[in-house]
């Protein structure tokens, strides 16, 4: 049975990898013959849980471009950006998906927010960095976003993105021209999820737990994730405009905090782990 599955997958990947125009064109139309075949075949392919990494990266980078336009360019402070990349790389190395490259950047945005795009680019706003007190808290925020990338949450959130499963690498040719419309629609759907609607509630809880786990495994105090959420909770109480922030795109903070507290017993020596307050204060200098 497994061999059969193997051959079906191989056959599909071989037949779909050349960017033969008509096939790829139709493949992206859910109602076409190829589209219907694909929707059946997706069952097989999703059993290997694979979407080509380069395709994932292309989707992610395109979303990153949209994110920059919406939230603002990266803060022009190389020391800060470098520091955020070091903290991010530390927790990413201890994430469930340590083998892909990750990049991190602080965006010049006054809204407390952070988001990750498929493939490993993670953004955090300067407003969110400004409410943090130590490196462990920054590590928690970045590890939460890495958790979304690891579990491919954004890709799993849109039906259209599923169409890219098993179709081979999306190239410049397949993004360009008429076919680009399908690709652009996918990016548009995903923007709606990432920037407006927010990911599924369970995905957020999953990323919170992943953050505790990978910060702890790195050697940071895992309760920092709880501290960040408590800070946001205080802000939420006094904030009128919640649009686009972690308040609006994430599930109720009280529920998230309660769930994390119930898991803290897994890390009995959590308080003995690193917080690194001084180094954070030296590097994380941002405007509110």
């Amino acid at each position, binding site marked *: 049975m497994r061999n059969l599955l193997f051959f079906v997958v191989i056959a599909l990947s071989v037949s779909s990898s050349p960017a033969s125009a008509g096939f790829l064109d139709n493949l992206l139309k859910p109602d076409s013959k190829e589209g219907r075949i694909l929707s059946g075949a997706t069952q097989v392919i999703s059993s290997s849980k694979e979407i080509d990494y380069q395709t994932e990266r292309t989707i992610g980078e395109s979303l990153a471009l949209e994110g920059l336009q919406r939230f603002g360019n990266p803060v022009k402070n190389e020391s800060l950006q470098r520091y955020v990349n070091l903290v991010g790389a530390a927790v990413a190395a201890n994430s469930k998906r340590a083998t892909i490259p990750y990049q991190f950047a602080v965006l010049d945005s006054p809204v407390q927010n952070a988001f990750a795009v498929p493939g490993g680019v993670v953004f955090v706003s300067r407003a969110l960095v400004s409410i943090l007190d130590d490196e462990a808290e920054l590590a928690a925020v970045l590890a939460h976003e890495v958790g979304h990338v690891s579990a491919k949450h954004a890709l799993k959130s849109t039906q259209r993105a599923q169409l890219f499963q098993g179709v081979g690498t999306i190239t410049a040719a397949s993004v*360009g021209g008429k076919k680009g419309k399908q690709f652009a629609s996918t990016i548009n759907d995903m923007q709606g999820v990432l920037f407006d609607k927010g990911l599924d509630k369970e995905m957020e809880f999953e990323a919170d737990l992943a953050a505790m786990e990978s910060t702890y495994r790195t050697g940071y105090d895992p309760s920092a994730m709880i501290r960040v959420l408590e800070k946001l909770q205080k802000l939420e109480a006094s904030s009128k405009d919640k649009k686009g922030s972690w308040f609006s795109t994430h599930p109720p903070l009280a529920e998230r905090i309660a769930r994390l507290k119930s898991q803290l017993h897994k890390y009995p020596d959590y308080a003995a782990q690193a917080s690194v307050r001084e180094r954070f204060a030296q590097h994380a200098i941002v405007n509110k």
Partner: protein
Amino acid sequence: MRMTRSLAVLLALLLFAATAFAEEKRWVSSEGTTLKSEASATSENVADIKVGTEVTVIESGGRWLKVRTSAGKEGWVYAGRVSDTPPAGEVTGDGGLFGATLQQSQINTAKADSARSIRGLSPGTAQYAKDRGTPEMYKKSLDIVLARKVSAKELKAFLKEGHIGEYAQVQGGKK
């Protein structure tokens, strides 16, 4: 009949052995993991071990574990760098040929991508930006973001400086 019973006993024993054995296994799940001669980050390096490598735990000492690799190398590894399940990585396969091959190819892709990122946006993204008329400023910004890289050496130095994880001071590591 007797034969069947012996076979059943043997099978049960084998199953028991396999379970007991499985409990002692760990998998390297962090990039840049090194086997150390002692339970300390400052001790000598025995060998570098790749993500996904299966190791057997021989001894446990707080947040450090003494392990043996399938190649017979023994040494200490920081507990945070291994997990009790194989890393999900790119594929949640059962470690069979299919899973291993796919995972390797994904790792190679990631590596190739890592090298590529010096050149900036992936070709597909560049095309998307062209079609959408994305302002040059944002393409340049993303280019810079993608070009930033952290080497294993820089990461180790960073963790050491912050006394984090395996570099924590004996009395706790809180700083």
